[in-house]
């Protein structure tokens, strides 16, 4: 499903070239739950953003659900992203001006889903995450754990094939973190592919495989 061959990323700094990622070659199959680990500055988040098609300034080959990403234009990449990827952030990144309901609805509005259908889908997701009672609250009225729950609900609402999560429990207490990880486990069991970046061995233990990075290299 995901296949990287010799992917590299660098910037120019004061004349010298600084590498963030070097010769990354890896395959992730449908249904896997992969954790990317490594010290700060190792390039974990950068890799995740490349997988999420948010970052286009890299070299190498990247096949995603059969499409050669390195050859695609901006529009095709966006289409690919829309159809297949849901993103979960460490600091939730909910839109402050929108209610819980509206936050979850946002990805659907970018996918030309009819209003009536949107209502049905969002209602379904609210049910599944048991946050129906909070649908009219704004993010700043929720605890961190609840916000991340909304973040995951939002990532899932458009039924993506892959969920990419960047330290999803990084800002949470351990019991809230545990809940989130168990949710991921459940989603994975139901067939969603998950790739997470984490510092925590505990979190990694929920997954099926660990990819370790150091100074931009795969260990």
């Amino acid at each position, binding site marked *: 499903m995901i296949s990287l061959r010799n992917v590299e990323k660098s910037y120019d700094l004061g004349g010298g070239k600084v590498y963030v990622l070097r010769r990354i070659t890896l395959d992730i199959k449908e249904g896997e739950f992969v954790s990317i680990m490594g010290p700060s500055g190792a390039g974990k988040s950068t890799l995740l953003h490349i997988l999420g098609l948010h970052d286009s300034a890299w070299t190498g080959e990247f096949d995603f659900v059969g499409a050669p990403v390195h050859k695609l234009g901006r529009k095709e990449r966006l289409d690919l992203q829309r159809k297949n990827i849901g993103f979960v952030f460490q*600091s939730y990144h909910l839109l402050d001006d929108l209610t819980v309901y509206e936050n979850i609805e*946002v*990805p659907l509005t970018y996918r030309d889903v009819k209003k009536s259908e949107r209502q049905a889908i969002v209602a379904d997701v609210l049910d599944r995450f048991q946050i129906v009672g909070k649908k009219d609250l704004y993010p700043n009225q929720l605890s961190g754990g609840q916000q991340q729950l909304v973040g995951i609900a939002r990532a899932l609402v*458009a039924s993506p094939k892959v969920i990419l999560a960047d330290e999803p429990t990084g800002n949470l207490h351990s019991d809230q973190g545990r809940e989130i990880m168990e949710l991921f486990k459940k989603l994975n069991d139901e067939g969603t592919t998950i790739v997470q970046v984490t510092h925590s061995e505990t979190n990694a233990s929920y997954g099926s495989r660990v990819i370790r990075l150091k100074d931009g290299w795969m260990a």
Partner: protein
Amino acid sequence: MNASDLVHAARRLRKSPGFAASAVGALALGVGVGSAVFSIVSGVLLRPLPFPEPERLVMITREGDVSLPDGRDWRPAAPAFESMALFLRSWSLDLTGDGEPIRIAASVVEPEYFRVLGAAPQLGRVLVDDDDRVGAPHVAVLSHALWQNRFGGDRGVLGRSLVLSDEPATVVGVMGPEFDLFGDETDLWIAPAAATPFFAQERGSNNFDAIGRLKPEATLARAQAELLAVSRTLEAQYPRTNRGKLVVPIGLADFLTGDVRPVLLALLGAVLVVIAVSGANLASLLLARSAARREELAIRMALGAGRRRLLAQVLAEGLLLAVLGGGLGLFCAWGTQDALLALAPADLPRQQAIAIDGRVFAFGAVASLLLGLVFSAVPALQVIGSDPAAALQGAGRGVRPVEHRALGLVVVAEVALAFVLLAGGGLLLQSFRALSGVPLGFEPRGTLGGEFSLPRSRYGEDREKQTRTVAAMVEQAAALPGVTSAAYTIAAPLDRRGGLGGTVLFQVPPPQRPVAGTGARVRLLHGDYFGLMGMRMAEGRAFDAGDRAGSEPVAIVNERFARQFWGERSPLGARLAYRDFHDGTPYFMTVVGVVADVKGITLGAPDFRTIYTPYEQRRVNWQAWGNLVVRTAGDPEALRRGLQEAVWRVDPQLPLARVYTLADRVAEHSARERFSALLVLLFAGVGLVVAVQGVYAVLAFLLEERRRELGVRLALGARAMDLARIVAGQGALLAVAGICLGAPLAVAAGWAATHVLFGVTWQEPGAYAAAALSLLAVALVATAAPALRAARLDPVRALRTE
């Protein structure tokens, strides 16, 4: 863009009321001032004249105007014209008969006039060639206003007989309300033959203007060549009345608006600057906002938003701002239109065409949409055009330094501009105040005056009857309750005509030094005119009852006259001979007094050399017009009606025209100065507001940009005051740089405007200092909010990386 984009945009704006208010304010200011001024320019310059094919209409001008016989010789010699007509504006007539007698303003026009303009009457007919035959029954065409006011819009007015200065005339038509070519409120139109047969006979009677309609294929150049040829011929035929008189055709629109066109275009230019600068302010505000919204846009991109959708969302906000700001601006422009026009000087042409019409609305709408959409899209495009990863990871914040510098320069320019306008406005205001404070030589408060003219038909050359009537009117006026004294004068102060013109032939004793020119004015008086006006007698005596017809002719001269002809010597007892323009016979007088100078013509210029003589001793019998003036104890306005009735008690047929107070006349004479001062100060106010908005917007932007840096400084031990000082310092820097840039420009502008200044020079330090101080104060106000926000910064939040 869809409805939910708009709903969300509205919600976002409501959540940041400070931003919304500043942005709407910036837009409203630009669009409001822009539309208001554009409505003037559009009305005066762009709206077509209310006649068919106005571009073919041509004014034919000759220096010193033209007489009827000369103008009628042009017609066959100028085939470039399809038609041509001579006309005379401002022919005063007394309308008597039904209702109160009034003085009306007639236009004397050849019947061709209506064909030239292509104007049809609203009622009845216009003048026809037969009406201009000598001996034809007199007819008149009424203006819409006279028809409404005098005859209550009665359609039965056609065929009614009027009495115009004791001559009967029949109403044959009424024109529509638009038919007012020069905005001079003509009451009715009559043919030259109905005015006086003298016009058609006398080549020296140069009282007429001419207007023509070119043939469709003819050019102005061809018309000019033909007119030049005919004026040469006339010069050869009638050298006495035609020597050196060139005929020049000018397009009617140019003729009407030529004087004000450069001023209005300059004004329009200034307005475009205001709009552009408001746009720059809006851009800084939106840049500050986009720095804060970068993350939100990136999240939306990560959630799958395409570029077009994000742009639509951003544009929804721009649209909302444009509608709110533009709407507010247009509303203010509409609301202040009347006030603006009330300030406009009376000689601004085509004022009746000024309105907030579709064209102005379109101008405002286009301006606000352009500003709102362009400036909201541009900063967002920067984010939308890049990968969201950078913004999501907290990197790539900030705007390139080029934009910083550009914004800073715009604000410096704004401050400089405001400085120039403020300093200029200050100079003009001081000039206006100097002009208003100028010693008049008379006391304008509590005076009321009105003009009359004793009609030939009833008074003829009956000198005795004229004198009796004038004396009786003065007596009646003096008897009015509230009136302390009354008098007659042929010309009151601040009347540009200034009395009867003439030449001083000789004086005994003769002047010690040669005097430049011999021109002087004669002002006829009756009653205690000097006492009434509060004019100071410098020497000798005022007129008294002994100065009668038949007694020794006496004169009182003004100080200027005395000084120029007799220098330091006393003129009392001197003899002078005087001749007026109509009669070569000298007239001898003995000087019995000297009276102080007054502002006789304008506030700026000194009075004419003047000879005052008693009305009873006037030179010729047809001098049967003038002013009845009174001094009142209370409000002179309350006596307007009473003064007219006093005249009617003497002659029930005699209207009193143009009743005025001298206080109003003084104000009118400084109206142009007041208007320029107000206009420039108005623009200075706008400039000041723009500068404040600019300083505020740029500081708000910098604050957003430097949030993290300020957090670091806090961690290093900076106090809240230190941060506030950094922001305030930036504001002060912008203001001081602007003032430094503006100062030489302001001085240069002041120097260039020297000729319009009165009683103040461009080297007036007060005006510049006041401008600089007010700008600094205002910049300080603009700085306060961002500086306070900097001082309240929460270091933990400012330092958070993600």
